[in-house]
Structures are given as C-alpha cells and as structure tokens.
C-alpha cells in the first residue's frame, strides 16, 4: 500500500465544512478533463494511488486510464464501494426489493444475470453480495486495483445491524476473485476492529478519520488512540485535516506522530497543494523522495 493515497471527495462537491466550497468544487470539476488534470498532477508528484467511490463518473476516468496504459503504468485504483447514493435513491424510487432487482441484472452475459436473479429469488446473501461487488468492479476491468474498500456507510450499517458475516463474504470474494486486499472504511474504528478480529480477518486494512480535532472519530479520540496501540491492523488515516478545520502543518505533524498508521488519504485540487502535503508527510514521517512513492 502506498504511503500517500489520493482521495476523490473534492471532485464530487463533498466538503464537510462549507456548502459554498463544495459547490465551487462541483463546478470546477464538472468536466472529466479537470479531474484528470489533477490526477496527472498527483502522479507527477509521485502519488500513484487513487481511492474513489464507484460513482458513474469514475467509470469514465477508468476508461481514460485504460486508453493510456503507458502514461498510467504505475497508477493504482483503490475503489471504495458502493456509491451509496445510487442505491439509496433507487430505494426511494422503487422500494427495497425492486431497487435491488434493478442493480442485479447488470452486464456480463446470461450466466451472471442468472446468478444475480437466482440469488435474489432465493434470498442468498452471499450470491447477492458477490454479484453486487462484481457489478461495482466492472468499471475497473483490466486496471490495477490492489486494494478494494467497502465504503463506510455500508460498513457501519452492517456493523450496527450486527450483520458481520457480510465482512467475511466481502473479504473472501475480494481475495479470490480479484487477488486484491480487502479494505474497510469506517467512522467507528474502535467498534469495527474487534469484530474483524472475531471473524478471523487478520491484519485488515482499515481506513478511518484520524485527526487532531477528533472530528468524526466516533467513540472519542482516546478510544482511537487505544485502538491504534492494541489492534493488529493496517491503518489508513483519512480526514486528517478535518475538512480544513486544522492547518496543514499542524494536522500532518500530529497524524504522523500517531503509532501504526501506514498510509494517509488526502484530497487536493491543485498540484501546489498536493506537493505541500507530500512534502509535509515526507518530513514528519522522515521519508525520502523514493520512500513516499513506494508501497509498503
């Protein structure tokens, strides 16, 4: 896993602090070319990993990357699925079962369609879940996806429901079908780690908010500190700037002092900001140029 992973919130008008900023970003990045320009800048700064939701627009970015294999030889997608709004909106329109049915057929021929339809009819959870993962992964066919994340809304919903077996299904499917490392995004790190341990998922990749302010660190910042000390897992820190509430230097200095953090996810809209974050991380983790760009 790369030490620095580029995030995608800025491309989709997601800003947890200001609607005005969010809209300005949505306007700025409404063309795919604007998104690609920033991804290229990240690549030039030595940031090779891009974690993104399985939003429809990402399919077009994936097409672009596929069309330029030389330029993106070292570029890796870390997909995060599902794009929850897509499903939530469908459920509002059609109701739960019809919405599920809408996503089950997908593409990929009769066999897959049969698999989806039969699973749905039988209430076969494993069949439905793996089918949906495959549907979300279709856009990345032929591209490098070393880590595949389950998005926090779904992870935390399953965690809250106590439907823990779904994590095992996801884990096994991602490993066997894609030869990738499964990852889990969560807003509830201290709750999730013991559950994954009980399921026998060893050293899972878990991505969670970790910032000096304790923003969206559910259960409190002390519980996170204990989790970082005690559990065997590969920690990816996100929201390290708390949506801009913490100045960059202070934010990176603090997060780099925390134990057992392997990678940092960050978003930026310009090459200058990417370079700044990269330099801060290199300095506070005492990494040289090559190490920043190297996977651990």
């Amino acid at each position, binding site marked *: 896993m790369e030490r620095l992973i580029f995030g995608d919130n800025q491309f*989709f*008008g*997601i*800003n*947890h*602090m*200001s*609607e005005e900023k*969010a809209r300005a970003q*949505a306007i700025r990045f409404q063309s795919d070319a604007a998104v690609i320009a920033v991804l290229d800048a990240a690549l030039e700064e030595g940031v090779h990993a891009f974690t993104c939701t399985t939003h429809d627009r990402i399919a077009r970015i994936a097409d672009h990357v596929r069309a330029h294999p030389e330029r993106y030889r070292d570029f890796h997608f870390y997909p995060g699925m599902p794009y929850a*709004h897509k499903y*939530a*909106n469908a*459920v*509002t*329109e*059609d*109701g*739960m*079962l*019809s919405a599920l049915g809408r996503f089950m057929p997908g593409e990929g021929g009769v066999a897959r369609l049969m698999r989806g339809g039969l699973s749905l009819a039988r*209430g076969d*959870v494993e069949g439905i879940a793996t089918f949906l993962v495959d549907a979300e992964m279709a856009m990345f066919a032929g591209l490098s996806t070393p880590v595949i994340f389950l998005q926090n*809304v779904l992870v*935390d*919903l*399953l*965690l*809250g*429901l*106590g*439907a823990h*077996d*779904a994590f095992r299904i996801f884990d096994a499917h991602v490993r066997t079908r894609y030869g990738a490392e499964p990852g889990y995004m969560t*807003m*509830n790190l201290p*709750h999730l780690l013991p559950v994954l341990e009980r399921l026998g998922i060893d050293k899972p990749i878990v991505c969670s908010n970790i910032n000096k*302010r*304790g*923003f*969206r*660190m*559910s*259960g*409190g*910042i002390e519980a996170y500190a204990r989790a970082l000390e005690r559990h065997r897992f590969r920690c990816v820190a996100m929201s390290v700037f*708390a*949506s801009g*509430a913490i100045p960059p230097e202070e934010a990176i200095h603090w997060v780099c002092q925390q134990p057992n953090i392997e990678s940092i996810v960050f978003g930026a809209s310009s090459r200058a900001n990417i370079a700044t974050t990269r330099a801060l991380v290199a300095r506070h983790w005492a990494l040289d140029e090559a190490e920043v760009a190297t996977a651990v």
Partner: protein
Amino acid sequence: MRIAVVGLGKMGLAHLAQIRMVEGVEVAAVCDSAAFMLGLLRGQTGLHVCSDYRAMLDTVALDAVVIVTPSKSHVAMARAALERGLHIFCEKPLTLSPQDSAMLCEIAAARGLVNQVGYHHRFMGTFREVKRLLDAGAIGTVSHASAEAYGPVVLRPAGGTWRSRREEGGGCLYDYAAHPINLLNWYMGRTTAVGGTALNRIFSADTEDEVHGTLFFEHGTARVAVNWSDESQRKMCTRVTIWGSTGRIYADRQEVQLFARSDARLPQGYHVGWNTRYTTELTPAAEFYIRGEEYAAQFEHFVSAIRGERAAAENDFASAAETDRVLALLRADAEEPRAAAVPARRRRLSIFGR
C-alpha cells in the same frame, strides 16, 4: 432496555443499526411486512423478526418501540403501543391529521410515556447553535426568517412507493418541507396563520414536488421554499436565514454565520461583524456514527429520557403536532381558489392543438 423497530425500509434499517449501538439497548424484535427483508435479517443478524405488529406487541416484552413505517400507519401503531404503556420514537411526520396528533399527545401525556419524533435537524450542531444564539438574544427582535430545503429525491415521473402517493403521506410537503417548517416552529414559536401557499408539481402525478409559502407568527414572518426535485443538490440541503434588529443568522448543516451589529448582545466567543462556526467545532463525536451525528444524538436522547436521566423535551409529540398542524394549514391554503392577476384565457379547441 428492550426496544422493537417497526418498518425496515431504508430509514428503518439505518435506525435499527443506530439504536442497536446505543448503550444499554437490546433490540428485542424487528417487524415488517416484507418477508424478504425479514428473512435477510433473521439469517444475517439473528434478530427476532415479526410480520404482525399487534402480535409482536402482545407476545414480546418491550419497553419502547421505534416506528419507521409509511406515515399513514403511524397513528394506529403509535396508539396501540401507547395503550400498552410503551415509550415511542416515531418517524416524522407524527400523523397526517392534526386531530390524530393531538390525540396521541394526550394519551402519551396522560400515561407519562416518553414520546419523540424524528426531526433530526434539531440534533445537528449548527441548527442547535442557531437556537442558542436566538435564545441569547444575539440578533435582537426577530422580524423574518427564510427556511429552505432542496434535494434530488424525485427526478422523473416514475415512482412506485408510498412516497409518491399523497394519501399515504407522500409528497414534498410531508416528507421534505416538514423539516424546515419544524425548525421554524422551534425558532419562531407557534404559527398563527399561513398564506400564499403554492404546492407545485414537477414530476409527480399524485403529489407536489415543490412547496412555497408564508408562515405568520405572533412576532415575525417566515418564508418556506422547498423542492425535492432539485438535481443540482447532491443530497438534502436545508438552510435557514433569520433577520433580527441587531443581526442576521445563516445556517446549513455545515456552518453557522452570524452577522452582528454593534448593539448586539453576544454570547461569549462572538464579536461584532461576521462570525463563522463550522460543524467540525459544533458537533461532538458520536458514540456510533452511520450517516450523521444527529441520528446517534436523537436516539441517545430518547434512551436517556426513558431512563429518566433527562426531561424528554426535544422533539416530543407536542412539538411535532405543531408541525403537523402547520402542514395541514399549508395544504388547505394551497387549495384555496386564487384570484389570478391576469384573467385566465379560455381554452379553445382547435385542430392545431392548444
């Protein structure tokens, strides 16, 4: 504390996951009419599932129920639970008729049961800060407010769920506008009258997709503008702006902006001129987070009120009933015949169409 969750749609599942993680809560049963969902939950979570609400009330020992069913069914379900002495958390709107809501308030009060409705905006850090500023008199005497909500719910004519059926409590007024109106009731008090209401259709055949109207209060007025067919929004966006004699407040879920005049009476930390407070500083971390700290906060409030650790003041049936009353006033006002400024042209039949 033994709780049952009734209604396992999108909202119901999220509520189930949220309340299950509140300390001391045991989800003793879940209930829905959809066999598919019950089968899934029984298989994946081991929860006790029921398909008959009344049978569940008769057979499962409970302290409280969380009702997350389509709005039309709230009144009968809530009444049945109250009559069995159960505390209730009910999704909004409480009922579709002010009389029904008043009746539920009476029963709950007479029996001393905790009652709460899911107006979660009141548990958001920013909208709570607005209330605190108003109570502190930061903007002096309030003259006017504007409450808006926009979102991408109905973006095409299709739609086969209860949300598109007016008689079942579907439509933008009861589903969406209820939130900003509930905030206005919190900030401005009791609505004395409404006027100029327009319930416009954009895509829906049976209900409105847009709500515009004016609310009159004992002191001041407010405008409501709501549209659930607004694709420019990524998700629901609620905004409130309030003008007073010594300043102006703007708030959405992310931030509060206060402009204070030199004569404003300001709480500590605020100064004359522009002030901005972000959700990152106004919102303490939840114990368990799914889609927003406010959902955790509302259930923690509910559970602690049942335990008697605090007065069940926030979002009780009485305050939700006031919102139900305003919704009914708006609907009635929208149906009043309008005197058009320009006389309507008579339609003529023509082979060239209209």
